[in-house]
């Protein structure tokens, strides 16, 4: 496994874009953020107060010529829930960092991410989930694709601090390597400083599954369409839980996902 790419932030520091989202006690909100054609650093601070719920979709879709860095800092308050979907598709050199601090009991942080690295892109996705109090939950699921000469990097760390008993924390990273010139680095990590917790992490790197391919072909679907369908399905897992139909449809269209309604 190679070491992850280190980003030189000074070279990127051409633009600093700062956003703050605070969801008040008892509120429920849906937010869509698009990081578009911005070279430099985008900085987001997200905080959910007691008994609030936030669903947020972040799309980092800048031009393939630009370098970009997005930093999302999350604080999840007591009894609040955060459901974050992150999609990383653009940028020559793009880094997304999420620091999620679970600071309130019974808080729930769920994150799903998709990274689609192609051509000569280098895309990096780093998520640090810190459980600081008892009785909280987190679930991170990330799907990464690397094709052509691209490099995809996933760094996921769950830390359960002392005293954060009865924490449930999970992370899963699935990777598709579609070219022998592409590279995937995956670093799932757990740091547990407390007993009485449920934790699991896993990572896999594979190519398109031959048995899935065969199954589709056995139903008359040609190789090209079968490949498109499998890729589309892989990506769709990151979007399928989005409740805002308009946003979900927009993402499906941008990523060429053809989902049949019924």
């Amino acid at each position, binding site marked *: 496994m190679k070491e992850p790419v280190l980003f030189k932030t000074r070279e990127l520091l051409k633009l600093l874009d700062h956003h703050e989202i605070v969801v008040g006690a008892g509120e429920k909100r849906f937010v869509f953020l698009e990081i578009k054609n911005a070279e430099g650093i985008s900085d987001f601070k997200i905080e959910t107060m007691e008994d609030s719920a936030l669903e947020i979709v972040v799309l980092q879709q800048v031009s393939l010529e630009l370098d970009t860095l997005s930093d999302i800092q999350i604080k999840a308050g007591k009894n609040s829930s955060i459901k974050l979907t992150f999609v990383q598709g653009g940028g020559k050199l793009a880094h997304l960092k999420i620091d999620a601090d679970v600071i309130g009991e019974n808080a729930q942080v769920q994150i799903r991410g998709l990274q689609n690295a192609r051509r000569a892109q280098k895309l990096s996705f780093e998520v640090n989930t810190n459980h600081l109090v008892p009785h909280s939950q987190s679930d991170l699921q990330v799907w990464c694709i690397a094709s052509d000469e691209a490099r995809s990097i996933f760094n996921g760390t769950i830390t359960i601090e002392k005293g954060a008993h009865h924490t449930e924390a999970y992370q899963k990273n699935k990777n598709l390597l579609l070219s022998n010139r592409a590279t995937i680095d995956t670093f799932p990590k757990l740091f547990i400083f407390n007993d009485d917790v449920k934790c699991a992490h896993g990572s896999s790197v594979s190519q398109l*599954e*031959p*048995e*899935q391919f*065969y*199954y*589709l*072909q*056995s*139903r*008359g*679907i*040609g*190789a090209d*369409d*079968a490949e498109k*369908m*499998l890729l*589309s*399905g*892989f*990506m*769709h*897992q990151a979007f*399928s839980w989005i409740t805002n139909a308009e946003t979900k449809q927009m993402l499906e269209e941008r990523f060429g996902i*053809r*989902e*049949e*309604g*019924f």
Partner: protein
Amino acid sequence: MSTALFEIKDLHVEVDGKKVLKGVNLRVNRGEVHAVMGRNGTGKTTLSYTLMGHPKYTVTQGSILLDGEDITHLKPEERARKRLFLAFQYPVAIPGVSVASFLRASLKAVRASEIDPKNFRSLIKTELKSLGIPENFMTRSLNEGFSGGEKKRLETLQLRLLEPKMAVLDETDSGLDIDALKSVSENLENYRSKERGMLVITHYQRMLNYIKPDYVHVFGSGQVLESGGPDLALKLEAQGYDWVKGA
């Protein structure tokens, strides 16, 4: 002799360099249902995968004919478009691909024409009702988290939608409880017609109580060892395989 609907001639197959099928011969005429029974590990699933063109299985000798046309070296999708169908013993899950998307793509490919959404829905609804499948099934990911019964119902649904002239059912009865077995088997039996053929691969007689075979073959050591009428299945159920030479 008229052309058989489906014919397997002296079929030899290797998997990872190991000989598994060693000269299989079978002839299915229009309207006939044949059952293939045998112990575990005798090559039954190799036979079904080979018939549907799985790339892992290499045909080293012999041929497979559908309506007199040699399909031995066709791709799986080409066989499906010629209306050969395999109902899988273990259908794979494809997360992120909905049942509806998959069925529509499959129908379009096999029929070689687009089907408009209204007709598609109407067609599917009829079949769902007949198989006792709820409509929300269509928006779920293909086979993901499905019970054994749900998977087999979906295989049956596909068979009825794609209207193959020759269907190979690979242990469709496995993983089914008594009620599901009855429902799935009755739907398969209803599919039977004078123009179609079926090859039912199974361990047990129980499925054959619903899908009555015209012929029963005992499979062992990569070959058909014994052939007979429906009574052969009953004899196997009562006496096991020990009496069959080579089984």
